[in-house]
């Protein structure tokens, strides 16, 4: 792999807090190595800003290995940037070339208000989970782990859905700001396991109701969420959620 260095123009969204209006600011960074991660390039920018006496750009990040789901930049018109199945922190600068202009925006959705610069508030996701994204089992209630064999395909599909990192890229990518991929990943994860069976109906109903309350849009199956999801959560999960929802509403008692 050939390594190289580059100079870049960055157009970054700056916003002091939720209540003030933001705008784009342009910055230049020089001598960026192709081996850096995108966030390390932002570290360089921030060091530069601090030296110049300006406030550094606030952005969410934590594990920097693509699993915590905290990083959340919308880069050149795609959540998490140009690579497929990738998070911002795992995007590396060899995706860019010398002289490129990179536009960086926060996730945009009413349900994800901007807190500062590129940082947004995703607590709506937590509240969706609170509405039913769990199996009600108190500590100590469990039977032996092997007491209930689980069909391997179901276990694998459940795991594939459970891989969701809750980053919100699906919402950011969706023209409707819908959280259906996130929601459906959790519904699928639990609906595919026998442990999830007792709360299966109420779970999907309550989680959808909470999603609507939080101000996310409705899904129109465009597939943008699946295309941008760092964990490649499948659109199939949304169809499964719809099936669960229909089943639950048709069999509701009242």
């Amino acid at each position, binding site marked *: *792999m050939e390594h190289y260095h580059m100079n870049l123009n960055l157009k970054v969204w700056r916003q002091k*807090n939720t209540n003030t209006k933001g705008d784009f600011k342009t910055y230049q960074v020089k001598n960026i*190595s192709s*081996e*850096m991660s995108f966030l*390390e390039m932002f*570290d360089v920018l921030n*060091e530069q800003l*601090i030296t110049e006496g300006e406030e*550094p750009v*606030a952005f969410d*990040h*934590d*594990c*920097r*290995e*693509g*699993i*915590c*789901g*905290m990083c959340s930049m919308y880069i050149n018109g795609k959540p998490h940037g140009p*690579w497929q*199945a*990738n998070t911002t922190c*795992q995007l*590396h600068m060899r995706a860019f070339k010398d002289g490129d202009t990179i536009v960086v925006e926060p996730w945009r959705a009413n349900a994800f208000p901007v*807190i500062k610069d590129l940082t947004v*508030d*995703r*607590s709506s996701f*937590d509240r969706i*989970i*609170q*509405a039913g994204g*769990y*199996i*009600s*089992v*108190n*500590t*100590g*209630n*469990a*039977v*032996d*782990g*092997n007491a209930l064999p689980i069909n*391997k395909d179901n*276990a*694998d599909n*459940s*795991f594939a859905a*459970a*891989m969701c*990192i*809750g980053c919100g890229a699906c919402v950011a990518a969706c023209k409707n700001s819908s959280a259906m991929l996130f929601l459906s990943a959790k519904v699928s994860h*639990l609906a595919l*396991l026998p*442990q*999830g069976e007792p709360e299966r109906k109420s779970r999907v109903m309550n989680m959808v109701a909470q999603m609507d309350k939080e101000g996310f849009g409705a899904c129109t199956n465009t597939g943008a969420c699946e295309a941008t999801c760092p964990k490649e959560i499948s659109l199939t999960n949304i169809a499964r959620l719809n099936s669960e929802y229909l089943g639950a509403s048709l069999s509701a008692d009242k």
Partner: protein
Amino acid sequence: MLNAKIPSGPLENKWADYKGHCKLVNPANKRKLEVIVVGTGLAGASAAASLGELGYKVKAFCFQDSPRRAHSIAAQGGINAAKNYQNDGDSVFRLFYDTIKGGDYRAREANVHRLAEVSTNIIDQCVAQGVPFAREYGGLLSNRSFGGTQVQRTFYAAGQTGQQLLIGAYQALERQVALGNVTMYSRHEMLEVVTIEGKAKGIIARDLVSGKLERHFGHAVLLCSGGYGNVFYLSTNAMGSNVTAAWKAHKKGAAFANPCFTQIHPTCIPVSGDHQSKLTLMSESLRNDGRIWVPKKQNDTRKATDIPEEERDYYLERRYPAFGNLVPRDVASRAAKERCDAGYGVGSSKQAVYLDYADAILRYGKIEAGKQGRSNVSEEEIIAMGKDVVKAKYGNLFDMYEKITGENPYEVPMRIYPAVHYTMGGLWVDYELQTTVPGLYALGEANFSDHGANRLGASALMQGLADGYFVIPYTLGNNLADEIYSKAIETTHPAFEEAENNVSDRINQLMNIKGKQSVESFHKRLGKIMWDKCGMARNKEGLEQAIKEIQALKNEFWSDVRIPGEVNEMNTELDKANRVADFIELGELMCVDALTREESCGGHFREEYQTPEGEALRDDAGHMYVSAWELKGEHQWELHKEALNYEVIKPTQRNYK
């Protein structure tokens, strides 16, 4: 000062006896008792959820935007449990023994045995929560093997076991939030422990969005804030992982135990340049199938694939034939360092060794061909089939490697090098997980208790969940039973006032320095001192020098750090400054501890104390104790020793040959 409160009686009955006799709090009283949980990783989330289920009023804090992001999420390989589903000779005793031995005989027998006992409950609990562990075709749970053991007892969910376990705990936590038993404070950082009459009674936390300081009362405070690996700047920890909560507790009187015991993980992606902000781990599970080697020739510049088999040195298989590539982490890390220091390193930096999957791909390919009943299969086809098998097992790890390095690990061997990964040391706790400050507890990586001088792979997840799900619900009750008469204290109490003022004074002091150097630059310098002089190998001279350098760095930090922005707003530089200031102080203590531990054991390798073959030389006669440090003043600590009495296990030199 140190009373470990280990129950009497035979080892295997201690925990059962304790549970049978500990004091209980009745449900009506639990509702009146408030518990603060700081940190929402495996230990914190499981503790908060379990205590909420019991009926306590819980307040949980995390600095991330959601409890689901805690760094437990990044654990890859798996979680150990003495289930013996494989019928390969595992048992509670075997897990207990392996953990004590893996920890180089510097852990408490009673704690570790309890850990091994509850390990099986953890798996059951997680399965019931819907954690999608890997399964066999028959629908039963699958296991893999891990370093330092000869049985298959590791449960896993591809390379994302930590994520799945944390999400299980997170969901249990969110359920309690929904039920109103737990109040969640995300984007909050604990900056002080409030003590009243010597007991922990609350915390001061900063709302990281508004910058406001908040007072929170609790009948007990649980610190589940993880380890302090980021003292090295470069580590596999998340960027936000910090020691601040534990350090504030230390400053309020909680003893800090074995701070020099840090684990250097052997399989990480090597540093690529000065810009590096963190290191990425490649799961230890890769050592199951991968073979580690360096060229037999020094400074060999050939491409890995051009080096013929007979010119490769599979040094782990050569030195440790019994365990081969699966020796414990400390042994594997030191062996890699030894080869690189001797000039056999690979890659542009020469600070790396190869982790090669070519053999495994061939082996799996042949098995696959056999399964399909095909003979006369070409080598290309075998390799293609083998790659598919490897992809199914380790695909996400290989993808990650390729994203970071730009190299395809299916074609060329991966380059790996050891990196700081876990800290065995932490706040000193007794059998009940209580620190030396009454009412203040430490769980998970934040405490020191179970891993001795070296942690075995897949044991961190086990310990975090054991503490949170199965230990603290009993031990906390035993102590809170005496608190049922103490009413909640108003946060207008002078102790809260004073604590908040201290925090606010320190923040103002930091903001008013208005120096020239960024927080990050200080952190990098601290990391370099620590890695060079208190890293994989330490010696007296280096440590003494490091202490001086850190003291000087501290002065420089407090006179020249530059923090832009305001106090009462989101200010990520201020957040970092608060953490780095604590890391600097901790760094000094780590060196002090490493200096006084005049032996080599586990992750602590003093160059002066080694066998002629270069293995760690333990000194059981002189150092079989836990070093618990009490802060006495700036740069001053008093050492308290907790003797380790091995009643069941006979310490021997660890031998993986």
